[in-house]
């Protein structure tokens, strides 16, 4: 094998290991010290060492074990040399022993879930939980996360560093919480995963790679939760919800790249295998008899999707599910979606009546879906001037070009 070929093979193996085991390695290294930053640095050095060693000496039989051995050495060196963590020397020795004891194990324990619970800990600022999880568990770099979350790389980098500092300094444990706390704590993990997905979802056309991948990464993280913590219906509900949304990604654009609203999408363009997986997840979650927000949102998506089987969406069921969802999350966002469903069932005026109480709500002034929904309902009740005004604001708030054009076409279609 020539050097070039060996280099390419080493890189492929390293990429595959990074994809498969990055989070596992970080979690394992950081579990005892709570020093996520040092674990990431040590792992980065180990990967760099692999890329120089493997082309010369061939890829090791067990690349994870190889990386872990090197990373552990770098990690302990860094801890010994670094005064900032200042662990007592006996504590350091215990850590060294603990890490050394696992050297011989071919399989090291998967502590990624503990790492996720630390990233989404209530003591961590809510806005940084999703980015932190993407970085620590999946190894996404700060610049990529920053571009997906529309903030500057420097700002994102600083916020990530601060959050990791907090884990270490405040002593946030990397472990699965006790049973009595698990429900609340799992909710914060799921919320962070959904926040990552929602950021990725905004780019409907999927032309922005960082964003499309974010949605896929969120699904990957949620799958991980359902695998490592089986029997949690809300985790299944969230996974189902995201799979339903993802199944329609392609259908959200026509051949010309124009935006297609759900009601006008071709059901043949929906991804059938994702929908089937989502359906079976919801059924399993339902059998566990602990209803929650994400299961309800998943069920709403399922009811929308009944058009695939019956030719029309089940609006009656959608409204009922939104009623139930309102009792979990009394948010204007839920109320708006419920009003749109009511409009399908009982007419546009009934829909408008359902959101009358939110007119002038300061939380909705910059919320595009509020203005778009209101515009749509106003058109249907013949209140053209108000509809035009609402469309103007919706268009002004939209950041996606095809959606802007779609709204503009709707606005122009209003007969004066």
């Amino acid at each position, binding site marked *: 094998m020539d050097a070039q070929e060996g280099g390419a093979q080493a890189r492929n193996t390293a990429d595959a290991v990074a994809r498969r085991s990055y989070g596992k390695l970080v979690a394992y290294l950081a579990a005892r010290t709570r020093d996520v930053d040092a674990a990431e640095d040590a792992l980065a050095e180990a990967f760099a060492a692999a890329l120089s060693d493997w082309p010369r000496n061939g890829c090791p039989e067990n690349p994870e074990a190889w990386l872990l051995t090197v990373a552990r050495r770098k990690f302990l060196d860094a801890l010994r040399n670094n005064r900032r963590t200042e662990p007592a020397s006996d504590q350091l020795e215990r850590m060294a022993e603990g890490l050394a004891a696992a050297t011989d194990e071919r399989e090291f324990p998967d502590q990624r879930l503990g790492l996720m619970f630390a990233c989404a800990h209530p003591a961590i600022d809510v806005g940084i939980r999703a980015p932190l999880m993407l970085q620590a568990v999946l190894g996404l770099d700060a610049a990529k996360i920053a571009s997906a979350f529309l903030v500057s790389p420097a700002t994102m980098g600083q916020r990530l560093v601060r959050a990791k500092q907090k884990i270490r300094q*405040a002593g946030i444990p990397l472990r699965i919480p006790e049973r009595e706390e698990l429900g609340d704590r799992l909710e914060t993990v799921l919320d962070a995963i959904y926040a990552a997905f929602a950021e990725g979802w905004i780019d409907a056309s999927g032309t922005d790679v960082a964003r499309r991948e974010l949605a896929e990464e969120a699904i990957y993280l949620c799958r991980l939760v359902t695998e490592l913590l089986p029997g949690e219906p809300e985790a299944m509900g969230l996974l189902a919800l995201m799979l339903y949304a993802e199944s329609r990604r392609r259908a959200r654009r026509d051949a010309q790249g124009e935006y297609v609203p759900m009601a006008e999408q071709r059901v043949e363009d929906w991804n059938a295998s994702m929908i089937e997986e989502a359906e079976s997840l919801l059924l399993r979650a339902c059998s566990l008899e602990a209803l929650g927000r994400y299961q309800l949102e998943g069920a709403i998506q399922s009811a929308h999707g009944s058009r695939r089987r019956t030719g029309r969406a089940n609006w009656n069921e959608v409204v009922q599910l939104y009623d139930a969802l309102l009792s979990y999350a009394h948010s204007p966002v839920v109320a708006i979606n419920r009003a749109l469903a009511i409009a399908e069932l009982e007419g546009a005026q009934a829909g408008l009546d359902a959101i009358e109480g939110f007119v002038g709500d300061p939380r909705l002034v910059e919320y595009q879906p509020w203005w778009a929904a209101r515009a749509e309902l106003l058109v249907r009740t013949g209140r053209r001037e108000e509809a035009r005004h609402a469309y103007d604001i919706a268009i002004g708030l939209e950041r996606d070009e095809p959606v802007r054009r779609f709204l503009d076409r709707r606005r122009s279609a209003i007969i004066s």
Partner: protein
Amino acid sequence: MQYLLTLYVDESIWPKMTREQQEQGGAAYMAYTEALKAAGALKNSNRLQPSASATTLRTTNGKTQVQDGPFADSKEQLAGYYLIDVPDLDAALTWARRCPAVGHGVVEVRAVWEMS
């Protein structure tokens, strides 16, 4: 790890309480302290004299000023602390939640900077 739980409360409430209410309040703190001791988590704890009794020192333009009154002029004032030794933040938060001050004030939880 050691954590310092600092208790901030509205000092104007205590003098307005009836004697019986004050006794009940004091008993709640006694019980909490006993529970911490029994669990082997308590390192130290104290209630402080009212913040009006505080004296503050700071240096401005190279001159050290001594001033009457507390550092922060806020509604809630530092009223006491618990220094506890527990494995991690979750354990510290579990104890902090049980602290009577959470019911009528604010509790801040901070890890102690451990020296080697």
